[in-house]
């Protein structure tokens, strides 16, 4: 199952993964998950809040499109994506990606590649607030390089 959720509410990655993995088929030999958390500090210093803006309707559609693209590319049927928007406190989860497959290589590739796509292609805009005010965060050169590798 391809399952995607764009939500303004906090979520618990372990509970979501437990639910998603419980529905696995007898052929499932591998479950890979990635959870991304809001860090308490960035290269700009202490972070007191992260705000993720999204484009209602469009963001949901794009996340669904990316999840389906990656599932098809790696020939796997079970992919989960949950992505927060709104105000996020340090330590809170931002994103969860999970993939199930018969063997581990496809699940690893799918989760890692989907994260690379989300970093540069998911319609969110991030603003970090710290002691010196707020600033918008854009993908790093490293994010772009990783994403480009998949287009080849």
């Amino acid at each position, binding site marked *: 199952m391809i399952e995607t959720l764009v939500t303004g509410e906090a979520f618990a990655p372990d509970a979501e993964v437990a639910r998603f993995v419980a529905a696995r088929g007898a052929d499932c030999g591998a479950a890979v998950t990635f959870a*991304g958390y809001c860090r308490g500090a960035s290269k700009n210093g202490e972070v007191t809040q992260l705000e*993720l*803006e999204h*484009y209602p*309707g*469009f963001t949901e*559609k794009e*996340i669904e499109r990316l999840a389906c693209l990656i599932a098809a590319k790696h020939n796997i049927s079970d992919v989960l994506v949950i*992505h927060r928007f709104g105000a996020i406190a340090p330590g809170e989860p*931002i*994103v969860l990606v999970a993939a199930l497959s018969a063997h581990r290589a496809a699940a690893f590739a799918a989760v890692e590649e989907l*994260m690379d796509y*989300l*970093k*540069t*292609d*998911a*319609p*969110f*805009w*991030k*603003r970090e607030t710290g002691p010196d005010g707020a600033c*918008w*965060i*854009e*993908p790093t050169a490293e*994010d772009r390089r990783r994403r480009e590798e998949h287009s080849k």
Partner: protein
Amino acid sequence: MMRILFFGRLRDAAGGRERLVALPDDVGTVADLRDWLARNDAALGSAISARGVHVVVDQVICNKDAQDVRAAAEIAFLPPLSGG
């Protein structure tokens, strides 16, 4: 009426996320719309013309300067995306 949306740092540049506008008759394409917005606000015009800005027409990524926008209900300008 057309809804124009600005996200991320373009929202700051536009002074708000949303504008409801009636397009003048000489605005027919994405390029015309950009020029028209720049006419009243050069800083905004330059921000929405920057590299990496996507144009979304009625919730479909477009990015073609020649795209006809006269029948569109909603046009969004997106600065570089950063999920995850």
